[in-house]
């Protein structure tokens, strides 16, 4: 799995950080998404997919494979 985030679409809602804090963080200065791990372990795939599905800005893309 490969995770891509789009800072421009991010609205700082923080859903991804609440769900998968090992994969996503938010910048201190403006709350915008920071990708901590673009290739998360298999154990986190489900929660990363969930984060992508519920992101209000549709700022998270997950490439499977």
């Amino acid at each position: 799995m490969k995770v891509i985030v789009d800072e421009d679409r991010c609205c700082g809602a923080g859903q991804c950080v609440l769900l998968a804090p090992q994969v996503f963080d938010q910048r201190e200065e403006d709350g915008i998404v920071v990708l901590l791990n673009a290739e998360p372990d298999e154990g986190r795939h489900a929660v990363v997919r969930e984060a992508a599905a519920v992101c209000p800005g549709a700022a998270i893309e997950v490439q499977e494979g």
Partner: protein
Amino acid sequence: MKQDLSYPIPSDAALEPPAEWAELRGECPVARVKLPSGDQATLLTRYEDVKQVLADPRFTRLLTAPDAARLSATDDGGLFNSEMAQILPDGGEEHLHWRRLVGKWFTAKRMAALRPAMAEIAERLIDDMVKRGAPGDLRADLGFPLPVYVICDMLGVPAEDRERFSYWSDTLLNLTRYEKAEVEAAQHEFFQYMSAHLTAKRAEPGDDLLSELLAAGGPEQGGLSEIQVLVTGMALLVAGHETTANMIGKMVAMLLADRTRWERLLEDPSLIRTAVEESLRMDANSGFGLPRYLSEGIEVGATALPRGTTVVCSMAAANRDESVFDAAGEMDLARKPNPHLAFGAGAHSCLGQALARTELQVVLEVLLRRLPSLELAVSPAELERVEGLAVGGLRTVPVRW
């Protein structure tokens, strides 16, 4: 489908959706409705349509165009088209800048850091409710005060003034109860209060959001103008009041209305997070929805909507769209993913959503632990809606334990 349905659509049961939602989604997803002001608007009820319009950064909440619909007869001083509402940038780079300056106070990490303080407030409020004896009113005893204490603390305003904030907040959010003169007087008082508060904060800064916004300097230093800081303070205080406060009462009422839900959470508290999201999705009484003024023509579904249309997005109707949610009418406490639209979508989605989620989760955690025997003291059919508010709620949530 009858033409020009009156909107908001009345519903008999406080926790159940009006039957019209399913009919509209099925047969008339782009419907003409009549608002309390008598003006016409276009109501959207399907998930894809609501999401499309809310996520389109070209369209905003401001209904200031001369041909925009008025929501209610008094609304020219109200929530969506007051002079004050125009002080905060609502689009483009400027909105982004504002959003990021304020948004850093609402990150998931900051919210996680607030958890212990929230839990302590919840414990104390529950202690007080228990001391007064059953039945209690979960709305007045817990749902309302908790978010108010939290937002007051974040903004550095004294919680002792909460009665005044409640009144000002109600006058700004109520579409029918107040006369125009009352709304204007309340706004004026609120403005004066916040202005004096900022003067005091400038002299003696604290460790709070407003002090930091002031310290960031004016627009030339990359900060906000004084008036923008002031209106931000007012907006956050109002937003921190009715929304989560009402949602706590509605969430607990939904979970207790069928007590097997409550029991399932007692057995498996790891479901608290998804149960909160499902309560947000199932909230049939979320209020007015979000209006948008179309500054350009667009196509929604197969319907062309001309420039100048005022659209009302019913997130609550969209959240029960069967084409997106399996068994959409069923409350599934483990549902995931749950991409509901309760906080809107896109660049204008709720700034405080991480705060709201955290508060709802903490309240539920503490309630399950402290009052496992909690139950409604009335039948669900006896619960009554608050009328006229832009944000929906229950008048009281009588409980015993």
